[in-house]
């Protein structure tokens, strides 16, 4: 397969031909990820866009080596030229949380309910940066300030259920950033927040990226969040990358029918004068689970508005329509 980027040699994280198959999966034939490959360079922000079930979360977990042991994984994941897939548990310990960190979807669930949040951040530090307790506490407070939580003392001593939704998100970010990782994976980190808080969190992440220079992999189903935030977007469908490119290009001119469909989901404006009462919202027909994963043809075929005979019988190859972009669709072959 081709490398979409010219500068792939300088990639921090390089994922190649990653195929993941859950052992206990009901449909044994269909892998959760198929031949996924992309690069992450130092300091860049990459959005991964897709519906739920497209394999985004599996991707995130596999980058951190958190898939169940029984999972069948092939391909390679080169992080600083070391293949993460060959790592054992202790080697992973030197990567997780310190080089690659993750911000989870719902901090209310991903923070232990029975530990003070400060301690939870300190635990991460303790695991990777051994040092005296006192110093650690100061470090934690500094990190909390970095994510915009100025009342360090109160936050430090609070339990998760004592904090508001916005604060919890910041704590989760602080926890992920505590060891200044090179890569931060943010898995739908703003989903349960209202618009104001969402914007704040995006600001924090943007700030963090600017200040610490860590690469951010931002996983979302909402293209609107990526605008003005991510450099690059990777669109996933049914465990495959269907399109990749810089955000401005992709948003301006989406190539894959799926990308097009996703982009049109974002409402035009708050008061659409044309929309009459009860009129349908724009929507993608069908759902991911309708897709026949065992098909020989294009996986998106059943939901595609531009499908042809060919799409049913053959799987499209990846093409590079222009520098820095790629797409898997017959419309762009040749």
């Amino acid at each position, binding site marked *: 397969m081709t490398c979409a980027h010219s500068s792939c040699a300088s990639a921090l994280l390089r994922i190649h031909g990653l195929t993941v198959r859950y052992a206990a999966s009901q449909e044994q034939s269909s892998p959760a990820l198929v031949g996924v490959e992309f690069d992450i360079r130092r300091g860049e922000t990459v959005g991964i866009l897709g519906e739920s079930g497209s394999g985004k979360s599996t991707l995130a977990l596999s980058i951190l080596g958190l898939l169940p042991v029984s999972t069948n994984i092939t391909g390679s994941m080169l992080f600083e030229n070391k293949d993460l897939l060959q790592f054992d548990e202790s080697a992973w310990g030197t990567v997780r949380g310190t080089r690659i960190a993750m911000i989870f979807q719902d901090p209310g669930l991903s923070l232990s309910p029975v530990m003070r949040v400060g301690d939870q951040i300190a635990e991460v530090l303790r695991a990777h940066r051994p040092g005296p307790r006192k110093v650690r506490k100061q470090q934690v407070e500094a990190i909390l300030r970095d994510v915009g939580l100025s009342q360090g003392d109160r936050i430090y001593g609070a339990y998760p259920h004592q904090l508001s939704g916005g604060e919890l998100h910041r704590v989760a970010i602080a926890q992920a950033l505590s060891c200044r990782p090179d890569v931060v994976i943010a898995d739908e980190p703003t989903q349960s927040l*209202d618009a104001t808080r969402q914007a704040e969190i995006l600001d924090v992440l943007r700030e963090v990226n600017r200040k610490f220079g860590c690469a951010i992999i931002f996983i979302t189903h909402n293209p609107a969040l990526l605008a003005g935030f991510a450099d690059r977007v990777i669109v996933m469908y049914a465990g495959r990358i269907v399109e990749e490119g810089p955000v*401005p290009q992709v948003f301006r001119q989406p190539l894959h029918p799926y990308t097009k469909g996703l982009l049109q989901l974002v409402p035009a*404006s708050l008061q659409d004068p044309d929309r009459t009462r009860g009129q349908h919202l724009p929507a993608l027909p069908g*759902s991911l689970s309708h897709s026949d994963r065992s098909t020989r043809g294009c996986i998106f075929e059943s939901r595609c508005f531009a499908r042809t005979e060919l799409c049913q019988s053959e799987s499209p190859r990846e093409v590079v329509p222009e520098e820095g972009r790629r797409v898997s669709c017959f419309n762009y072959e040749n």
Partner: protein
Amino acid sequence: MRIEETARHALKPALAKAAGLSKRYVQRAPFSYKSFVIDALVDVEFDIAPASLTALVGESGSGKSTLARCLAMLEKADRGEIWFEGKEVSRSSDRELKALRPKIQMVFQDSAGALNPGFTAAQIIAEPLEVQRRESGARLHSRACELMEEVGLSPNWADRRPLEFSGGQRQRLAIARAIALKPAFLILDESVSGLDLSTQAQILNLLLDLQKAHSLTYLLISHDLGLVGQIADFVAVMQQGKIVEQGPRREVFANPRHHHTRELLASVRLLRSNFRTAQAGGR
């Protein structure tokens, strides 16, 4: 708080109405005299016009869900009145309640938790019918299949269990169950918030279809103003147990009175405009 322009709706009597509704939770820790007081509802005045779609927006903990549960008669408020179809119902007897229940239905946020994992899809949908003794035996099953079809689920899946469905499908199941009793009033508590954009749009479209078909009245609760703002007729904004703003959507969006509403709207607009700019090719 009432806005003049609702006069048009005021002509029709409200389907559901809350007057001076208050609810306070007092929690006591086992080994202390200290108790924690949470005012979930403070003197809430709230109207729902028939056959309308009212969006209730507010951040988590603002009291939206408490209001929803009070309106659905799943919880009793401390003070205040609830009117439904022109009758005060907050102090109904058990028997009156049983008669009232089919008319007011609720769809919960966490579809996985609100569906018994041990039941099949058909059993889940049939449950209200069974409980209310509307149908029985084979008719029960065929009615469940009809309902599945109505919400866009294949009746072939009638024997699957909730965990075999995707989030969107589970939400459809929950909606099918809620409309099984042909209610007049459907309360959707964050019913679409856990879903992704495409599924959200589909579910909202489904709701619109159902509204048309059954002349349903909706109360759609969400933290996402941008989402519900697209389809709502009325918008209400809650903060700390109080309704700080309510009125027809256009009115509220055009002329928000409360700073919280203004803030929310500004953020939504910012996000949208970023996206439009990107689509337009700018950065």
